[in-house]
């Protein structure tokens, strides 16, 4: 049964990713500035060179044709060539993916750890002073622009991943704090407390199972948040990851690169959310 579920999920994932790729390509294709090249403004270029530059993007104007050719290339391991980097995209991804994965992994791990550690006492201590302090701390980081966070970490010599952690943890804190507080106030938890169960037992046996579906959904969501945060932070910190690639591609309307980045982001988002959905379903089935 699980095999069938898994296969169905993978097929849905692939179809959705492909759909995401073509939708992303459509957004880029019809965005202003598509097909223009700032090299056209070089006063040294002759007229025929300017016209050649303008024609160089003509094979991307027909979106279906472009996407069909792209998919054909993907089947042979060819992800296309980036205009803005003048290099094969497969090579660019191979170099930069590990950097982004490290950044996102560190950001996620740190964000969840810090978020949970801060949220848990807020739900168990029940003192407004702690709650106020924790909320203020998370509020400070929520209000800081990514650029400032990134520059602060550079000043302090910290890793780029921690800057992503600073972006992730306030969101994780807000959601988990509210979830835990809400769950702690539920009747069955009050009953358990009245019956003298220890805090740990109440948390593990009565809080976590109730909050688990939403926490798991949040896990999937936090991957998207971390990936989204990695883009501006990599740009500001000049970290050579996928985020920097995506930004450069967006500024220069580099369609082949943008399609690949969109597919990558879509796949990561889908995999993370599917994993959290499947885990949540498995948990519910086990309880019932």
């Amino acid at each position, binding site marked *: 049964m699980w095999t069938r579920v898994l296969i169905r999920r993978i097929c849905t994932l692939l179809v959705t990713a492909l759909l995401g790729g073509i939708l992303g390509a459509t957004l880029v294709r019809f965005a*202003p500035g598509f097909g223009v090249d700032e090299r056209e403004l070089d006063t040294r270029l002759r007229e025929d060179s300017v016209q050649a530059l303008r024609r160089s993007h003509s094979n991307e104007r027909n979106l279906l044709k472009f996407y069909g050719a792209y998919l054909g290339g993907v089947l042979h391991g060819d992800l296309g060539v980036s205009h803005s980097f003048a290099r094969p995209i497969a090579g660019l991804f191979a170099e930069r993916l590990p950097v982004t994965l490290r950044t996102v992994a560190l950001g996620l791990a740190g964000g969840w750890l810090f978020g949970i550690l801060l949220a848990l006492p807020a739900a168990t201590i029940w003192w407004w002073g702690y709650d106020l302090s924790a909320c203020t701390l998370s509020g400070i980081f929520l209000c800081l622009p990514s650029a400032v966070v990134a520059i602060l970490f550079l000043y302090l010599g910290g890793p780029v991943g921690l800057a992503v952690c600073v972006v992730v943890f306030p969101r994780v804190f807000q959601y988990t704090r*509210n979830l835990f507080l809400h769950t702690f106030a539920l009747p069955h938890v009050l009953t358990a407390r009245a019956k003298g169960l220890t805090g740990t037992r109440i948390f593990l046996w009565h809080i976590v199972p109730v909050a688990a579906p939403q926490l798991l959904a949040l896990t999937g969501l936090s991957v998207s948040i971390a990936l989204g945060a990695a883009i501006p932070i990599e740009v500001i910190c000049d970290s050579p990851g996928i985020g920097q690639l995506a930004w450069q591609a967006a500024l220069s309307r580099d369609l082949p690169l943008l399609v690949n980045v969109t597919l990558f982001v*879509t796949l990561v988002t889908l995999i993370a959310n599917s994993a959290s959905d499947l885990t949540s379903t498995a948990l519910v089935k086990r309880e019932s």
Partner: protein
Amino acid sequence: MKTIRRVASGFLSIIFLATLFAGILAPAPYAKQFRESPNASPSRSHLLGTDELGRDLFSRLLYGSRVSFLLAPAAALLATIMAASVGGAAGYIGGWIERIVMTCTDLAMSLPWLFLLLTVRAILPLNVPPLGSLLITFMLLGLLGWAASARVVCAGARSLRSSDFVLQAMACGSTPFRVLLRHVLPNLRPILFAQFLTSVPVFILTEANLGVLGLGVSEPLPSWGSLLRGIENWSTVQANPWRLAPLVLLLLAVSSFQLILPREGVVE
């Protein structure tokens, strides 16, 4: 705690009134350039000093509050309502509808919506008033910002689908819409409040970041976002620490929102 909540409410009221009466409270028009005194320190005539073009920062902060303090929460509310509607309905109904909606949500989270924003800006006439352009930007942010928390709302709604009070409400003959509105969504308040609280500063900062691409507020209209962009130049901030005033104000406003929202389970 009640005192703190009153203080927070009072603070938000003061900001609201200040934005309404900015025209009276501001010592100078927000666009007026005192070109003889750029980057001036705080003084009697310029309470928060001036910016690089000699514009009074206190006036710009007041007028910027009009934009950000009103539009960002409105956009956040719009995103929250959409997340509640889409996620709540999908989770409550379940089945293939839930799967399709969640797939669309995942897609919405992955697509480069930046290009949609650029396209909208391109469609707008160049002579559209700055406030008009900003309204459209915040509205789009609200319309695009629901996807992330819709997932969490959906998971919550799914888990409540088979709970006793929902079954009881259905047994009493309540319509699905009524059950969703009166029984499911109120139990998802923690998620929705978290969504709202995180969206307000995120939208303000997003508006600032979109300025790099030509979206967001245009000169000379100020916003908290455009004022916050000024603190990205760290050497300027070190030399003029009062430039952190918009950040402090944003932080106080977000904290105040947090404090006035109902806090479940906290002993006061």
